[in-house]
């Protein structure tokens, strides 16, 4: 078994132009947000709380980068070039969501998770990069497929959430903002899925690793440190069963990843954690 899974002429996700993606990156959305509209017609508090959570999840791009860059994935200059622009676009998506939240009255305190839990999670987060780095470097290139597949699953889940918010909202300015956000995010899922698909198709060990790792992740990425009730608000209440099934079907369609049921399992777990 060689470490180099792909023959040199095969470039994963070759149909995706990373240079073009970088060149046409979307920056700040502030000018198009029309925030005054929310002062006259505010979103309901539950929606604001979900938007607030989605903003934090989008800001998780740098945490993802940290986990990925301490592994051999950082050596793939094409993937890292994609991630540089991806992180930039996600920063501004998060910023747009934060602006919308800030246009509403501040939520009541006590909504977040306890200080003790945060400290515990913070500690776990501090230890994780070390173990990740050691383990990941032993595994080698096969890990890249896991990282890009994880990126795809995460994008599919969060994009489904944005789509549901849009479809249910009677608020034209909010709908317009969500449409813009979805337009920015769709190519992210496309790159991740194409890259993961090509790598998984080329390497049975990459498939085994991805199946194992993806099942262990708390979806969406970054939600492990969020209040369970809020996470359930997205996975359990916002996304319909058919939406979860559609995400799982997309994962099933990736080479070797059939039958993982990541989204529906995540929704079950979120429901349980939220005590419902």
């Amino acid at each position, binding site marked *: 078994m060689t470490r180099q899974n792909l023959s040199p002429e095969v470039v994963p996700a070759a149909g995706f132009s*990373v*240079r073009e993606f*970088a*060149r046409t*990156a979307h*920056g*700040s959305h*502030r000018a198009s947000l029309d925030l005054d509209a929310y002062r006259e017609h505010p979103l309901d508090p539950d929606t604001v709380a979900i938007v607030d959570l989605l903003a934090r999840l989008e*800001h998780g*791009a*740098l*945490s993802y*980068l*940290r986990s990925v*860059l*301490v592994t051999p994935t*950082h*050596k*793939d*200059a*094409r993937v*890292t*070039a994609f*991630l*540089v*622009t991806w*992180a*930039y676009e996600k*920063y501004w998506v998060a*910023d747009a969501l934060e602006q919308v939240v800030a246009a509403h009255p501040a939520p009541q305190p006590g909504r977040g998770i306890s200080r003790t839990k945060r400290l515990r999670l*913070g500690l776990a987060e*501090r*230890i994780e*990069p*070390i173990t990740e*780095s*050691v383990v990941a*470097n032993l595994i080698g290139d096969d890990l890249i497929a896991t990282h890009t597949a994880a990126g795809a699953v995460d994008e599919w889940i969060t994009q489904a959430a944005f789509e549901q918010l849009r479809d249910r909202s009677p608020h034209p300015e909010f709908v317009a903002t969500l449409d813009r956000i979805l337009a920015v995010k769709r190519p992210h899922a496309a790159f991740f899925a194409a890259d993961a698909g090509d790598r998984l198709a080329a390497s049975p060990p990459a498939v085994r690793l991805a199946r194992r790792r993806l099942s262990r992740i708390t979806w969406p990425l970054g939600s492990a440190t969020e209040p369970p009730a809020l996470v359930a608000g997205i996975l359990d209440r916002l996304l319909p069963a058919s939406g979860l099934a559609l995400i799982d079907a997309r994962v099933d369609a990736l080479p070797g990843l059939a039958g993982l049921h990541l989204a529906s399992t995540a929704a079950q777990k979120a429901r349980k954690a939220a005590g419902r």
Partner: protein
Amino acid sequence: MAFDVDSYAETSMGVTWQDLDFDSFGSQPLSQDTLRTLSYMCAVEYHTVCYLRDLLVTPSHKERDVNAFMTMWNREEYWHGEALAAVLARYGITVDYDELKAARVKLEWRDKLAPLKQSILGNIIGDDFVAVHMSWGAANEWSATAAYRRLAALEQHPALSPLLQRIGQQETRHTAFYATQARKRLEKSKMARTLTRLVLAKAWRPVGSSISEPEDLDHVMRHLFSGPDGLAEIRRIDANIAKLPGMEGLTIFETAVRPHDMRWPAPDPA
């Protein structure tokens, strides 16, 4: 000197060169020395993402301003790489993603150790270690500024000089962020000052020395900084470092660059 991260983020953009007269690279060709130096700089710029990795394994990734800056900064550096690659392409020199991958793979053994050591060290010493990173970042950005300024002075070129100037202006903003962060953290903690002084004095090497061949590094240092003018530039950035709290008297650049056979006057007797 305050640094407003929000307005930095709002105004951050990829460097542009489409309006510059790149045909002048045909009518006024760059020297082989300059092309070799540009290749080195281009690789360093593309490689910035790996430096981001080292920063992120320390607690600094939790800080919001730092996150915002890192996101924008890294993208700007990526575009510096793209801009220099566009110049090199005019001379048939391609710096493509696959070649970069080869350079990073070659370094594997050293690379594997770096994030691990920093992660352990970074998490144990915590905030004081962030001061080291910020000071190190400031040193890197000052040296990048100096390098672009020198190259622009050496090559009075109608397309290259304005491009280097644009890149240099962005490097100056990077410097402002790192230096502000470093100063704030160094002022607060004696441990941070001790640690930073130790790491800078013992470990600082010119940016890119870990990803390039020794001959190429030699070439770049001599090309940009040999002779009295080069030494003056090096001393100018050493003076910037020495102004950071607790770094008085450090001469990290002069010390690191002098061994490259620089044809400099002898060092001042201390």
